[in-house]
């Protein structure tokens, strides 16, 4: 079955500290990988995407993510978190041959002063 797992429901980091949000997926077909961010009451904004090529991708707002096929993972990172990064982050996967995006349950990021 196609599934996406974000093992951390909540994460709290201090402003200026580094961040890593975890994402794992299951299903054997070629994946297309995405990270979205959602502020309260808002829709989803695309942070970055991976289709092929270099496994380290850069996105907006200083975020990056690394695709590790052997671990079925696509973790999101940021070297220095800002208070404005507090939001809900969703990992999503679309498998080749399918139109739908499968989302994880999300990780809520809290930023402490």
């Amino acid at each position, binding site marked *: 079955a196609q599934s996406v797992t974000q093992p951390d429901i909540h994460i709290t980091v201090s402003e200026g500290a580094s961040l890593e949000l975890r994402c794992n997926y299951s299903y054997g077909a070629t994946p297309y990988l995405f990270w979205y961010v959602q502020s309260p009451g808002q*829709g989803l904004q*695309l942070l970055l995407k991976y289709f092929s090529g270099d496994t380290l991708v850069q996105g907006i707002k200083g975020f990056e993510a690394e695709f590790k096929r052997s671990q079925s993972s696509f973790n999101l990172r940021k070297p220095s978190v800002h208070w404005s990064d507090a939001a809900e982050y969703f990992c999503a996967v679309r498998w080749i041959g399918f*139109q*739908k*995006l499968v989302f994880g349950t*999300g990780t809520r990021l809290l930023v402490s002063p």
Partner: protein
Amino acid sequence: DAGVTQSPTHLIKTRGQQVTLRCSPKSGHDTVSWYQQALGQGPQFIFQYYEEEERQRGNFPDRFSGHQFPNYSSELNVNALLLGDSALYLCASSSGQKNSPLHFGNGTRLTVT
């Protein structure tokens, strides 16, 4: 350049009623997808429309139906509303190009009482 617009932003309905949600895709996009996001969950794929036809459907009952118009806008209809249909309904659009990422609207918050 207007992004994905959805209407209404909020809606309150009673069990058993019917509801219609509307979506206008981002300029240049011809494909519309609908997602349901329950509180505290990731979005779940309902269906996708392309060239006025349903191209793929998720695990939702037939009470959920849709339509796409020649101008690419779309409607989501839900009949015989249940309390469990209360959620944020997100519309996303994309272009016909391969690997075109989804752009999401801010959603319609539906409350069923």
